[in-house]
Every structure is written in C-alpha cells, then in structure tokens.
C-alpha cells in the first residue's frame, strides 16, 4: 500500500495538481501513501470534494493531505472471470459480452488484463493497451470444472499489484469457492496490504458472498450483487464509471512510527456521506 511516488501514475496524478507539486515531489522522492476513496451519498458518488473536505488519520494521528485528485489517472482494469462449469452456456456468452462492454468503456491510455479461473487460475492476457488482444482472449474462454475463487483472487491481486499503477480488479463469480488451496483470510489480508482496488460481482442466487465482500471491502472497493440473471454487463459499466469518480488522496505520514500495519481512518465533512477506502496499509520499516 505504501507507494513510492514516482512513475507514470504520479505524473498523471500531479498533472492535475500543477507543476509546483510535481517538482517538490520528484526532488524529494518522498514516500507517500495513496488512498483510493469512494464517497457516496444515497448510493451515488459525491463529486466536487477538495482536500479540505477530507480527514485522514494514520494510526489515529491526523495527517496533512497532499493531494486530492478526481480519478482521471489512467486505469489498469483486470477482469477476473469465473469460467467454471456452472457458468457454461448462456451465462458464459453474457459474460463475454459484458467483458467486451467494459473494454469498450476504457480510454486509450488505460490498460486491461484478463484472468480466468475454474480449477486452474490462468492469466489469459497481461496488462496491455491493445484491448483487441484482451477481447480475443475473452472470446476464447471456455467453462469447465470447479471454482477456485480464492486462489484466483490471490493471483489477480498479485498481478495487479506488480507495477504500483492505479489498478482495479473486477472479479466475477457465479458461486462460492469449491476448489481453492489458499485460505480465504490470508488472501483478504494480501489484498488489504496491496495497492489494488477490488470490485466483486456476484451472480444472482449466490448464497455465500462473504469472501468477495470481505475482499472488496478490504481494498476500499465493494461487492455488486446482480439482481437479474445473465446481465453482468451493466454492473461492469457502472463499476468503471464509479472508479473514475473516486478520489485519490495522498499524504506523507507524519507523527507515526514506520513499519508494520497502519490503520487508516478516512472521513469527509459531508453529513450522511459514506466513505469506501482501504482500512490500512503496510509501512516499510526504512
């Protein structure tokens, strides 16, 4: 979670904050913490918030916010799709169509990736701006076998957390895990400690969404439970829109010891507003 503020992500983020901020940050190579925050009111994202509207506490210590940016930073979106045998047939066709819809919603400087899972977890397309490659991999996806949802979530988070970019995992499943090796709590913990934002999408009728809910919540994302059979497309599109309306809040930790797990508490000064943000981050000891 602790991000070295350098590289493409920071440049894109600072472009909205002006050149002076860019110079200051590059010259010092300050280690900052980046929090991807969604603020909603009545379920709708709240626009127009500035640094003064946010309050961030790191292990209970109030922090000075360096930057608040609306999420116009290029996105990396990983689709992690359940391709187990229960998804076969029409649901698989709908899932492919939904994936293409999401790819159509990406901008030229965004990137996309595809990971599928049944018993095996397979990275079908690494992060790329060549969306046609991802679409092709999507079309080649077939469904069979049991569901290794937890193993897949771990694989997706580890891949998406590679480059420190603003990466989002959208993980779709139509059922509960039936085949994973990894313990669910360990994977949720890994996701919490990563810089990745996870959105879960559960097909209608899934009776145990506990893992997906915890996974998403731990990263500041959320779980979308589909109400209508066979229509994940709208959910994918809504998630993409929502992600673009999130805030990127950064701060340089002060007054707290380095190292270990830091609990984060993010609030906004809007009555009734709800904040979705990760619950903490791991700080390097030096």
């Amino acid at each position, binding site marked *: 979670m602790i991000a070295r503020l350098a590289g493409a992500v920071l440049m894109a983020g600072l472009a909205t904050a002006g050149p002076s901020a860019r110079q200051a940050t590059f010259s010092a190579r300050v280690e900052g913490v980046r929090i991807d925050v969604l603020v909603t009111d009545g379920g709708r994202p709240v626009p127009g918030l500035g640094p003064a509207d946010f309050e961030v506490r790191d292990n209970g210590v109030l922090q000075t916010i360096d930057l608040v940016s609306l999420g116009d930073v290029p996105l990396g979106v990983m689709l992690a799709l359940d391709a*187990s*045998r*229960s998804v076969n047939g029409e649901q698989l066709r709908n899932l492919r169509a939904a994936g293409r819809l999401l790819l159509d919603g990406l901008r030229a400087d965004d990137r996309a990736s595809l*990971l599928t899972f049944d*018993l*095996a*977890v*397979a*990275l*079908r397309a690494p992060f790329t701006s060549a969306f046609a490659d991802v679409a092709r991999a999507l079309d080649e996806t077939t469904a069979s*076998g*049991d*569901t290794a949802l937890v*193993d897949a979530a*771990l*694989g997706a988070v*580890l*891949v998406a*957390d*590679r480059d420190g970019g603003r990466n989002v995992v959208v993980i779709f499943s139509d*059922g*509960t*895990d*039936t*085949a*994973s*090796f*990894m*313990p669910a709590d*360990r994977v949720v913990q*890994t996701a919490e400690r990563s810089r990745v934002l996870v959105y879960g999408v559960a097909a209608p009728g899934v*009776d*145990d969404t506990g893992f997906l809910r915890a996974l998403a919540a731990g990263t500041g994302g959320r779980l979308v439970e589909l109400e209508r059979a066979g229509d994940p497309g709208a959910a994918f599109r809504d998630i993409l829109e929502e992600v673009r309306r999130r805030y990127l809040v950064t701060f340089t930790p002060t007054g707290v010891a380095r190292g270990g797990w830091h609990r984060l508490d993010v609030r906004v000064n809007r009555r009734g507003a709800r904040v979705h943000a990760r619950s903490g981050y791991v700080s*390097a000891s030096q």
Partner: protein
Amino acid sequence: MDGPLIGLARLPGDELRALWTSIQILLQVADNPWVTRFRVPRATRADPRFRRDTIIVFTPDQQRRLQSLVERVRRRGIPLFLQRAIVAHTDVVVLAPDVAAAAYGTSYASDPIRMRVGDGQMDGAESVSLHGERARAVLTRLDDGPDATAFGRDWYRATLAFQQQFESFDSPHLRAALQAFPDDPGIRFMSGCQHEALAGPLFQAFARSYRHSGLRPDIDSSSRELAAAEREFRRALAADPAHTEARLHLGRVLSLRGRHQEGAAELEAAYTDTRDALLQYFAALFLGDAHEALGRLAVARSWYERAARATADARIPHLALARLARELGDDRAAEASLERALARPPVEGQPVEPWWAYRHTQARGAAAQLDALRLRVVQGGGPP
C-alpha cells in the same frame, strides 16, 4: 471376466431369475431362520405397489435344509458361488453404471438416492444401485467365517475406493463397511477421507444450497466433518501406525482445525516416512501452509519450494511462493513464481496440478483392487 461368469451372463432370463430368487431366499433365512414364506416379486418394473407377487411356502423339511445351508455358509465362509455373485453385482455397478441405476426402477420418496454434485451444485440424482445393495446384503448377512472376512474386507476396500475415485460418497455403504470391519485401517482411512472431503467447500456449498429443500444430503457441518475425519484417521493409525497416507491426511485435517503445530508434526512424519512422490508433494505443500499459519515464513517458503520441485505440474506452491515472496519484499522471486502459477492450464489428457485431484487421490488404487478381487474369484480363492 471369467468363464463361469460369462456362462452366468448367458443364462436365459427365467433361470437367472431362479438363481436370484434362491439367493434372496438364503438371505431371508439368514435374517430369520424360522421364516416359512417367501415373496417373489413379479418380473416387472411397474409400480411395485400394484404388482402381484408369487408366494413360496416352505415345508418344515425345506426350512430345516435351508437353515442348515445357512449355518454351513457361516461356518465355512462365503462360498465361491456367492463370491462370484458379489463380484458380478459389483461389476454391473462398475462397468455399467447406467444399467445399475436403472435396475432399481421406481423409487419411493423415502428411498435413498445418490446425488451427483458438480461445482457445488446438484447435477442430478439417481436411485442407489440395487446391484450394490444386493452384493452388500450377501456379505452383511452371511459373513462370519475367517476366509469370508478377508474377502469381505477386500471387497469393501475396493468398492469404497471405486466410489471415492469419482467422489461418490455412499454413506450407507461406508457404515456397513465400518460395522463389519470396525478395526480395519484401510476402511477407517477411507472413512476419514470421506469426512475430510465432505468438510470441504465443494460439498459444504452443495449442502447449503439444499438446506431449505426436502432433500437431506448426508453431510454435516464442516467442523463436525473435520472432527469425524480426525477420529477416523487416528483409528486407522492406531490399527496400523505405518499407514503414511492416513498420517498425511491427519496432519492436514489438524491444520484445517487450526492446530497447525500438531498438524505440522504429523505432516513431517509423513513426509519422512514415505517414498511416494505424490504423498511427499502433498506433505510439503501442507507443511508450507501450516508453517505459514504459524508465522514461520522462511520455513514455509522452503516447504513450498520442495513441493514446487516435486513435480513439473505444480502450480499451487508457486502461487503460495509468489505471495510469500511479495510479503518478504522479493519482487523478482514473486514474478518468477507468478509466471508458473498462472500459466495456461494443461489441455485435457496432460498431467495436472496434483492438488486438483487431492479429494480422490486416496482411491488411485481402485482399479487394481477390483482386479485383484476378480482374480481371486476366478482362481477360486474361497470355500467351494
């Protein structure tokens, strides 16, 4: 199949039926020596509530002769012709499962059914095979002699393995096996494996999906199934302390129950005691997991590395290693492991990650066990 069994298969329908009726009469007398009437169902698959049956009434002399025959069978063990009958019934189930399921015909709501589960959902249901039940009935009612016990034990071991290789968990069959052979390590081991599998997410998801229906899957809660599995593996080991595979499963179950330290000790013993590469792979994989749960990340890493080296088809240890490497700040190692963990899956027919087959690895000898059973009958291994 041997000559006499082929001859049996060529018998005209009415003769086959007469043979079947004779065996049923024998079983009924075994149940109740004083029985004087026997009901022969009509040869129809119509609704049994409306069929008209034939009643055979035994004379006192016939009754005495039947009693004496049953006593003789019990004294001398299952005779060869009954062993042949058991193996023939078994072969119908093994070689022609559709025929075996259809033979049961119409069933009542209270009859047991076998549910097929796939990806946590019910794929279908079928009547429990009449042939399987008939075979078991012969053993449970007539199996007293020492040689018959050996045959029965091997039959139960082979049939349980046969079922478990398809993840077919037939609780009544297992219960009958345990009742007949309560101290047999092989049967206790299979029992433990059944409970361990039923505790897993596949069957728990299935059980949850049926909690509000009229069907009652024979599946307990995960924690109860794990407790039962632990008990069964311990009993298997008490009867045979050298049963390495039981020790491996015990270690995993202990770890799943949160007793990682105890689990690790059993797993290390299993790893050391076996030369079987597959069992060593699982022991190393589970040891990695147990040590990780205990917070010993470096030790966990070394066990995962051993598992990864054990087979070129491994993916799961690489996934675990990628997570650990990332946790330990070793990004280069994390990349290399991730590459292996998320590679394209093998096409059908190619070797796969052993973990994917863990739930039925214990049954990998089923075909050989059934062959041995057939050979034994062909070679006349029991009393005539």
